[in-house]
């Protein structure tokens, strides 16, 4: 039986272990493009659409933690309680593809693909999210920064299913910004997430390096400066972000433009986040 459709996580994990060659399928928005263009010819597919345990999310008020199942689609992050708990994730989700892509594409698929342009990933990096994996040998959890090991590379073993991500609820302003050639249906040329958590500011950059890049120098610059930010400080914040980036020239843009764009995005996010209403 080449298309495996488990109805529970336990069965899914068993199947992933007994069919290590199976392609795991969530929303299909990455995998099916490869299948349609003959880049992949799957022999066996493990489809997660009926695994209810992966399709839910929870907000735990006691521990102030959000847990998002890997099969939750972007469309569910855009509105409601989840968007209030993690406004930057809602903004990032809203920039993904089109309504049709957001209805199908999942956060687990974004992690599975692990493109440096994956829009949820800078948010996970800034929020220091934990990625949860499961196999027949048990559960593993690791910080997102350890999970993503390179462009389209991650620390998932072949028999593991990504079950979800968890991270703290936003307890300060946060935002996500992205540059692309148009507003809709665009893979980012550069992106940034700034989270002004009570424990300190956190800045993470997408599409400007082989992995998502955290900018500790920029964070340190504004760590002990509450209140409004002037243009000079925002520019310096952006300069430090650009200095931390290591972009390349490719079919979407040039390294020079990406460096410039990410400095503008970082500076803008800082000014937005510290503006007093």
């Amino acid at each position, binding site marked *: 039986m080449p298309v495996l459709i488990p109805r529970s996580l336990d069965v899914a994990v068993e199947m992933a272990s007994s069919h290590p060659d199976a392609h795991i399928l969530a929303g299909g928005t990455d995998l099916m*493009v490869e299948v349609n263009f003959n880049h992949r010819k799957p022999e066996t597919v493990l489809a997660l659409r009926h695994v209810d345990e992966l399709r839910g999310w929870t907000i735990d008020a006691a521990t102030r933690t959000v847990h998002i199942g890997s099969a939750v689609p972007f469309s569910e992050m855009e509105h409601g309680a989840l968007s209030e708990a993690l406004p930057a994730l809602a903004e990032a989700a809203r920039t993904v593809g089109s*309504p*049709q892509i957001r209805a199908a594409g999942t956060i687990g698929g974004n992690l599975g693909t692990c493109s440096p342009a994956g829009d949820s990933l800078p948010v996970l990096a800034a929020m220091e999210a934990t990625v949860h994996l499961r196999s027949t040998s048990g559960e593993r959890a690791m910080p997102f920064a350890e999970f993503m090991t390179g462009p389209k590379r991650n620390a998932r073993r072949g028999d593991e299913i990504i079950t979800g991500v968890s991270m703290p609820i936003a307890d300060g302003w946060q935002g996500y910004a992205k540059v692309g050639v148009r507003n809709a249906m665009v893979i980012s040329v550069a992106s940034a997430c700034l989270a002004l958590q009570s424990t300190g500011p956190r800045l993470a950059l997408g599409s400007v390096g082989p992995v998502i890049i955290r900018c500790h120098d920029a964070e340190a610059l504004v760590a002990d400066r509450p209140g409004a930010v002037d243009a000079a400080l925002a520019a310096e914040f952006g300069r430090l972000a650009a200095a931390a980036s290591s972009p390349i020239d490719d079919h979407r843009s040039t390294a020079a433009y990406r460096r410039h764009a990410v400095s503008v995005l970082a500076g803008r996010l800082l000014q937005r986040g510290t503006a007093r209403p």
Partner: protein
Amino acid sequence: MNEHYTLRVNGVERDVCDSWIGESLLYVLRERLDLPGAKGACEQGECGSCTVFVDGAAVCSCLVLAASAVDAEIATVEGLNPDGTLTDVQEAFVREGAVQCGFCTPGLVMAVHHLLDAEPEPSDLQVKEALSGNICRCTGYGRIFAAVDAVIARRRDAAR
């Protein structure tokens, strides 16, 4: 490897025999189930001409693995009005001149129905965002937005 499975399309159980495991729902609908309403242009999720509903969500059928869509409610443009008459959205598209070559129309009609079912009074920005996954090479979109406005106005009048 050959697959045999059953899909529920527009409320009817349909057998799919001898299909290759990697076939998309778009391909199965058009080539195996004689439902050519959903159109295929890009087969990479960019154009929206293949839009169908799967369990109530408007998705690109080119990105759905057909064999994984068992036990789901699939709805295509053919199922909107099974008696073959036009829906109010289709009628407005015709009347407002929103159909030129017509290739994008089935996908757009599905997207508009999906939007107006969830949000009967969308703002212009909401309409643009809701249709941002549907590409039209012909109309320049003005006539399409006019058709959406016409449906909104008509439904508002009918509700009075």
